[in-house]
């Protein structure tokens, strides 16, 4: 009677959990990420081309224009509650491009507005995007120091 016990070996249970957990539909997810991500980049290229050809901008300014426009579009789509649906569909297709970085800043700003303008909106703006800036800028400073010390 008191032999009725559950297995208590975590490794055994971990294998059992894997068996009973449905896998993500990999093929579908990869395809969606690919086409949405590709399309966002095409949109960026189109904006940069408009900047370079019609507005006679330098390549660098045109590229910045593309970034700013994509950031703006993401901010609006996040504000009206559409971007998370795109993210749900496309996964990495929408968070790997700069749209993901923008959404990571806009969504907490929106969410934590209620906690005040300073410690809510102002501070939480960086909860997800902060690490990206920390490690991106941090690595670039290290690389710059190596350039400066050892030449190019």
């Amino acid at each position, binding site marked *: 009677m008191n032999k009725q016990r559950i297995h208590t070996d975590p490794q055994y249970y971990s294998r059992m959990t894997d068996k009973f957990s449905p896998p*993500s539909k*990999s093929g579908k*997810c*990869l395809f969606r*990420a*690919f086409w*949405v*991500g*590709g*399309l*966002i*980049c*095409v949109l*960026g*290229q189109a904006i*940069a081309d408009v900047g370079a050809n019609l507005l006679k901008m330098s390549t660098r300014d045109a590229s*910045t224009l593309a*970034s*700013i426009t994509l*950031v*703006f579009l993401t*901010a609006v789509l*996040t*504000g*009206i*509650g559409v971007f*998370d649906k795109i993210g749900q569909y496309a*996964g*990495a*297709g929408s*968070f*790997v*491009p*700069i749209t*993901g*970085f*923008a959404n*990571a*800043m*806009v969504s907490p*700003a*929106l969410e934590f507005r209620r906690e005040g303008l300073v410690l809510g*909106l*102002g501070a939480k*703006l960086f909860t*997800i995007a902060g*690490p*990206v*800036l920390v*490690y*991106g*800028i941090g*690595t*670039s*400073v290290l*690389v*710059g120091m190596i350039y*400066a*010390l050892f030449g*190019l």
Partner: protein
Amino acid sequence: MLMYLKVFLVGGALCLIGELLVLLTKLTPARILVCYIIAGVLLSAVGLYKPLVDFAGAGATVPLTGFGHALCQGVKFSVQESGFIGAFTGGLSATAGGIAAAIFFGALVGLIFKPHSK
């Protein structure tokens, strides 16, 4: 037109790699973004990312690795211009547009809109 095809394929492929990471490693999006930006800086530093940008334009600059590339190129340029101090000023000045836009529009949208019921 060929350019747009290249943009689509390279940009799509970079996102596909991100999705593969999600599926295989269970890394959260925030961690993958951090990996991407570090990868972008390092690939750019060893000179591997520039050819991709020349080949695919926005297909390489719009994904977050492109953000890392911009940081690295900015640092490189400023170090040439002004020496050691450039290691600190170059990255942010090259990416100022995108970062300022994200902060500005983020705060603006946060002020105007409310989160939606799901």
